[in-house]
């Protein structure tokens, strides 16, 4: 007997009482309940030690250059809009990890942001790139369009495509493992900047 059949047999035997279970109640606030509150998003992002800047699309490139410093190496996913790219940005064309890690910052778009939790979700679309590029550089800059912001977690789940690789980000990497002191940046990017577009 295969272990698969063994386990399924055991589980069926365990359920010999044939429990009849009513459908789970879902009286909580579903998707579409709440109005999107951009101020709340900013507030929560800042609370999580992310830095938020409100800029127009035309100001993105200059803002990123300002953040990274002159001559900083900014990595971008291949599908990032041209107008956002700061001068000297280099695109990820299947770069090896050490090249990615050597970037001073990575600049991406996003898929969805959740105001209530201060969370930004990347879904590896061409303007966000492979998961690895937002993992190794120490600084991650995300450009967020207001239309991508939703109110709550149910709204985000309703919008996202589960078949894509998803990374939910709430503030920079943090640990609380030493006497529960929050320390930013253990393994992931230590700095998260969010450029919230105003146009």
């Amino acid at each position, binding site marked *: *007997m*295969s*272990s*698969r*059949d*063994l*386990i399924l*047999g*055991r*589980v069926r*035997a*365990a*359920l010999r009482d044939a*429990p009849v*279970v*009513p*459908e*789970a*109640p*879902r*009286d*909580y606030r579903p*998707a579409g309940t709440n109005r999107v509150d951009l101020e709340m998003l900013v507030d*929560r992002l800042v609370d*999580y030690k992310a830095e938020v800047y409100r800029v127009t699309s035309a100001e993105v490139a200059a803002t990123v250059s300002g953040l990274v410093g002159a001559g900083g190496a900014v990595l971008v996913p291949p599908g990032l809009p041209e107008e956002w790219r700061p001068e000297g940005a280099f695109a990820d064309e299947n770069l090896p*990890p050490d090249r990615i890690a050597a970037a001073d910052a990575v600049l991406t778009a996003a898929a969805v942001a*959740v105001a209530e*939790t201060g*969370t930004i979700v990347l879904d*590896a679309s061409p303007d966000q790139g*492979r*998961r*690895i590029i937002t*993992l190794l550089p120490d600084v991650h800059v995300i450009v967020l369009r207001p239309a991508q912001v939703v109110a709550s*977690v*149910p709204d985000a*789940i*309703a919008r996202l495509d*589960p*078949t*894509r*690789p*998803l*990374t*939910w980000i*709430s503030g920079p*990497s*943090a*640990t*609380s*493992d*030493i*006497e529960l*002191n929050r*320390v930013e*940046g*253990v*393994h*992931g*990017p230590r700095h998260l900047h969010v450029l919230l577009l105003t146009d």
Partner: protein
Amino acid sequence: MTTFLGMPATAPRGVGHLRGDQTFPRAARDALQNSQLRRNLRHATTTIRGKSGRVIAELPDWQLLRDAGSGIKTDVMSRLPELLEQLEERVVAVGGVVHWAADANEANTIVTELVKATGSDRVIKVKSMATQEIGLNEALEAAGITPVETDLAELIVQLGDDKPSHILVPAIHRNRSEIREIFLRAMPGVDPALTDDPPVLAAAARRYLRETFLSTRVAVSGANFAIAETGTLGVVESEGNGRMCLTLPDTLITVMGIEKVLPSWRDLEVFLQLLPRASTGERMNPYTTMWTGVTPGDGPQNFHLVLLDNGRSAVLADTVGRSALHCIRCSACLNVCPVYERTGGHSYGSVYPGPIGAVLSPQLTGVADNASLPFASSLCGACFDACPVKIDIPSLLVHLRNQVPHAAVEKAAMAAAARIMDSPRWYASAQRAAKMARIAGRRGRGLPPPLSGWTAGRDLPEFPKQTFRDWWAQRTDAPAATRASGSSGGPSGSSGGAAAASGGPSAGSGDRSEAPDGTRSEREDGR
């Protein structure tokens, strides 16, 4: 009774970390001596409780989310076979390989073989309760493979040759100076000028692990959930070590308890609200990674999912106990438990400490192997209130206490006690004997052998200076007292009420000045 192959089975002995070397009371006694430990724990649990309470209060529908979480989990357990089959089908369809492991030994063998097949002699690990439960690290080491824990707390535990003591913050029992000492002693290449400043310690771990992340081709993880409908798996974390392990290697091996499956993608809208707020007290944890099979050009190109039973089917077979499988390992119940706060996680002897450990471990191993754990609680109910999926842990504890096999001596003592309490005259003389024992100087907190085992885990109440009967006899007139002690005809073995009715002079006579005293006190004693 013959065992047929599909019979639910408990976790095997001799492998994994579900059984301690000591009973809970014995281990707890040592922990209670450690004031440093108690201070660390109190600080940690109070901090998390406060944070968690604040962010939970932000959600107007918290209780409704709990109801939903509980309802979804109950539904999952009721149709686990079909959901597991659906999950398998989906994961395979999106390029994953699914393995089924009946117990810890089989899971360890599967993972070890998979790692060997890659040619790698090292794996990077994401913190996972399931792999701790089965003792995977020991199995890998025995096969010449080095497992590297990448969560900071797990790394502290691993380098310190220690055991985790909390589900969420495994090194909660260590303070910064201890962590510094561990790093100086065991972390290769560490700066000898290391201070005990938390950011400095975290940076040391970052430096130490960076190269390992980039050069290891295989990762092992657990999973916080798996969606049957889509084949999506998810890991919730803070540090980014999870993302590293789940993204950088060529091969990803995920070990997951069969109870972690959720029916639909939409269910995540419930659990992603419940878990972080109940667990770390955050609105959302810093990182969550979700993957559905393999994505060409992004992340691991080989994905293996190991579905683990290891006693879960036995838990499921108990119609009451099965709700322990609803647990999403948030650790909220640990942080509110007065027993955990004082004894720490190691006392529970299992990787699952605290209230949930006290119900889950005995069920996974069979109650006989963890018989003291259902008693490791004051039944105060704080864990039930804290649990985001509303597991009624106190009721489960009581349910399990009834299944604990009692030692023969204890059983005999209990039977004797029942007989004595059943008989008013024997009870009265037993009380006098107890008083004698006290006068003779044998007072104290324990009973002599063979009953010492029973009192080892319980304080024997001190007997009052005067028994109720003596007190009553003194305050009423002598004839009534005489009648009370002489009336009820010896140890008939019948119930107290019946004895009183047959032996009492005039229970129904209405002669309240004389009769009720003896009768009534016998009745109360005799129940």
